[in-house]
């Protein structure tokens, strides 16, 4: 059961990632990315991280993707212009370097000791377990990251405003 779910999620995630990078229309790319994010939430569920899977769907596939789609539609971005085609070297060299990177990554991660994943008896991916860590050991980083959100909000308003 887990194996079937894993391989179908892998297929869907890789296919939608390919659509994201091969599609010329930004709207289609954005929708494929939203689908990809939902697939990754499925992986989180398989890895028993239920709370992160929920956050992934709500924050990533919900909020961030709506923001990106909103900007794509606001700017009315059409296709990537075809009258000035990208240089072939960009496409070929990019593809080649990426394939090399994928090989290096693949070989290095497959060197991880291949013990099957242990069964976690203790509650592990629940909101309670995560909250314990977040408000215990990681309390100060948590406060700093909220400051980061505030700074990003001010920065976004400053950048996008026509005139202060």
């Amino acid at each position: 059961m887990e194996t079937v779910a894993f391989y179908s999620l892998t297929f869907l995630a890789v296919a939608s990632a390919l659509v994201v990078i091969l599609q010329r229309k930004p709207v289609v790319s954005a929708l494929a990315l939203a689908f990809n994010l939902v697939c990754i939430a499925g992986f989180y569920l398989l890895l028993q991280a239920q709370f992160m899977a929920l956050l992934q769907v709500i924050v990533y596939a919900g909020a961030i993707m709506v923001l990106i789609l909103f900007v794509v539609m606001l700017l009315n971005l059409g296709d990537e212009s075809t009258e000035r085609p990208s240089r072939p070297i960009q496409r070929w060299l990019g593809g080649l370097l990426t394939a090399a990177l994928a090989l290096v990554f693949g070989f290095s991660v497959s060197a991880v000791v291949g013990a099957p994943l242990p069964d976690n008896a203790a509650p592990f991916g629940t909101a309670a377990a995560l909250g314990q860590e977040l408000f215990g050991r990681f309390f100060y980083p948590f406060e700093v990251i909220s400051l980061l959100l505030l700074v990003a909000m001010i920065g976004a308003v400053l950048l996008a405003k026509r005139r202060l």
Partner: protein
Amino acid sequence: MNPEHYLIVSAVLFSLGVAGVLVRRQAITILMSIELMLNAGNLAFITFSRMHGTAEGQVYVFFIITLAAAEAAVGLAIVIALFRLRETTDVDELNLLRW
């Protein structure tokens, strides 16, 4: 399932994100490819967290999601500002800084 299966998926997704950044010219698609890479990293973090049976990796993923939200907000504001300035978001035409 073994952890390396998940890690290989994560590596493949990360490489696809890199390919998107290298090949695409629309600024907003490049931002989306960066999101793809961040997610591949998150998947690796969750896998390691599951391997060691602790919730630490998930806390890091929580922080990365927050960071991605901040990055998306600022990045999209930059794209809007660029569009207002140059009427395009094609990164090949945005060569103001080039001498």
